[in-house]
């Protein structure tokens, strides 16, 4: 297995999704987050937020709303069972709240291998803007692909 570096620069189709209160509530339950500011409007307002904010890594739930989710794996022709998450980084420019509509645009920024091609690394960046067009965050992820052919002659 070898990944084609020609995909560097590929831009995926942008999509827009709404930030929903129920989804944030489930996300908080999953990570064990009990701060009421994420689920109780009165608590959020008392803490100075205009609406319910979202936990820092809830941005992943937003990017996973892509109607063409899995596009990166299809582009690279990689099986989902072979991938691991190598790194994830978020830059926060402005708060995201329940009720916002976020537009995400993902692109491939680098592809490289290590250990003689046993592992491949795909770096992608997703820009995120709110309904007014204001940038709210940048998400940078590194997907690691385990080469199923590694070690075989």
């Amino acid at each position, binding site marked *: 297995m070898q990944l084609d570096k020609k995909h560097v620069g590929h831009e995926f189709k942008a999509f827009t999704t709404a930030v929903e209160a129920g989804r944030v509530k*489930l996300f908080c339950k*999953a990570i*064990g987050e009990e701060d009421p*500011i994420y689920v109780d409007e009165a608590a959020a307002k008392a803490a100075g937020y205009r609406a319910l904010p979202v*936990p820092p*890594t809830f941005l992943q739930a937003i990017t996973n709303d892509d109607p063409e989710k899995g596009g990166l794996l299809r582009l690279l022709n990689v099986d989902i069972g072979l991938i*691991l998450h190598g790194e994830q980084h978020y830059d926060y420019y402005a*708060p995201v709240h329940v009720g916002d509509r976020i537009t995400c645009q993902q692109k491939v920024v680098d592809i490289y291998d290590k250990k003689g091609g046993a592992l491949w690394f795909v770096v992608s960046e997703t820009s995120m803007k709110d309904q007014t067009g204001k940038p709210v965050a940048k998400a940078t992820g590194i997907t690691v692909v385990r080469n199923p052919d590694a070690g075989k002659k």
Partner: protein
Amino acid sequence: MATVPKFDQVKVGDAIKPIVLPPISRHQLALYCGGSGDHNPIHVDIDFAKKFGFKDVFAHGMLSMGFLGRLVTSYAPRDRIRKLGTRFTSITWVGDVITLSGKVTGKREENGEKLIDLEIKCTNQNGQDTLQGHATVAAA
């Protein structure tokens, strides 16, 4: 709830109060599958995980990054977080007991903001780091 750190009072080397989490459960992985929208079966379907050479299902890296988010928002309010990032350095298995810890590694001013840099990590019951991350928060 966290209060905004005061720049002048923060010292490099200051520790964030650690958080010890309950053991990772299969139920938690199912909740995270739904909450995050990461539907990769490798985290919830043991048959699928075995097919790809794993002994069992294992936690989403992003679940643990969510824990790091909790650690950072225990140190500074949500709207003061400017950066959060991590490397996923080893797999987190069902039953693992994760401790979240962190410390201040730097103080600087940028774009008119007083920033505090943090080193943060998840460590399992064997003392192995599963995530090695960093964060930047804006102080007052």
